[in-house]
């Protein structure tokens, strides 16, 4: 009963919030509604018994990614409304609507493979933890995730770690150049810089 109510509340709020994200003209509204929608998405993970995934969603998406977006938004002029020129809005809506119908049908098609066996069943770590530490140490989903992540998915995990390192270095290199002058007043500061150089050459 409560699951049904929670599902519909989360479903309706995520849909509305993401629609605001996609349709809004203001960057600030879009970003705020995206953050709120991601909080609501983590609610689905808690409903589905994926507690650790829900916490990671909150920390990584709502914490880190949105902070990064907010930080990037300060570089650009976020107070103005964004003007977007649409050459053929009817065509975009037609194509988008058609693709939407295809996606929903694809995602909701009856699942073939009724006899699929779970490779890494939920609750697999329970016996191990029980034997090693006793019943008071069982943490449920977190233990399961840790066991599977550091045995079967260890190589992808390490590759993901290297990928994050590469992304960090790339971000620093791309964003770190010429940090000393303002972006939004780029031309003005360029002119000032040129003037200063000319003055320096004259003296």
């Amino acid at each position, binding site marked *: 009963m409560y699951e049904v109510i929670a*599902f519909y509340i989360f*479903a309706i709020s995520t849909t509305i919030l993401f*629609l605001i994200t996609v349709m809004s003209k203001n960057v600030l509204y879009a970003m705020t509604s995206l953050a709120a929608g991601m909080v609501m998405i983590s609610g689905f993970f808690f409903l589905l018994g994926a507690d650790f995934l829900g916490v990671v969603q909150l920390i990584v998406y709502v914490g880190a990614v949105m902070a990064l977006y907010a930080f*990037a938004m300060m570089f650009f002029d976020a107070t103005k409304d964004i003007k977007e020129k649409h050459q053929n809005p009817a065509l975009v809506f037609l194509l*988008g609507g058609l693709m939407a119908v295809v996606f929903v049908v694809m995602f909701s098609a009856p699942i073939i493979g009724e006899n699929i066996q779970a490779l890494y069943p939920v609750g697999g770590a329970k016996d191990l933890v029980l034997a090693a530490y006793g019943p008071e140490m069982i943490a449920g989903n977190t233990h399961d995730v840790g066991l599977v992540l550091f045995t079967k998915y260890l190589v992808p995990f390490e590759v993901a770690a290297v990928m994050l390192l590469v992304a960090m270095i*790339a*971000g620093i290199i791309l964003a770190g150049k010429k940090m000393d002058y303002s972006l939004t007043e780029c031309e003005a500061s360029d002119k000032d810089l040129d003037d200063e150089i000319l003055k320096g050459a004259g003296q």
Partner: protein
Amino acid sequence: MMEIGISHYLILSGILFSIGFMGVLRRKNLLMLFFATEVMLNAVNVAFAAIGNYYGDLSGQMFAFFVIAVAASEVAVGLGLLIVLYKKYGSLDLDVISSMKG
């Protein structure tokens, strides 16, 4: 009331993915385009978690973790590129930035 099954989650995931897809099609500002891709990634994560829950399998959650890692690195690199583009063109509008004809 009806029991919430996997099809509820999958239909919701399809709807959210379609919303993000519409955003990718109609947005002309690069920052807003990034927001739309985040919506699509989140929709796929919900589908992964729901299918993993349906089969009692942890692989769905694992793939959702890796999707989150990919999304985080995508944002780091993408925002760096956006800053470079903004320095070069003074705008994030795709019509201004695009250099190819057609």
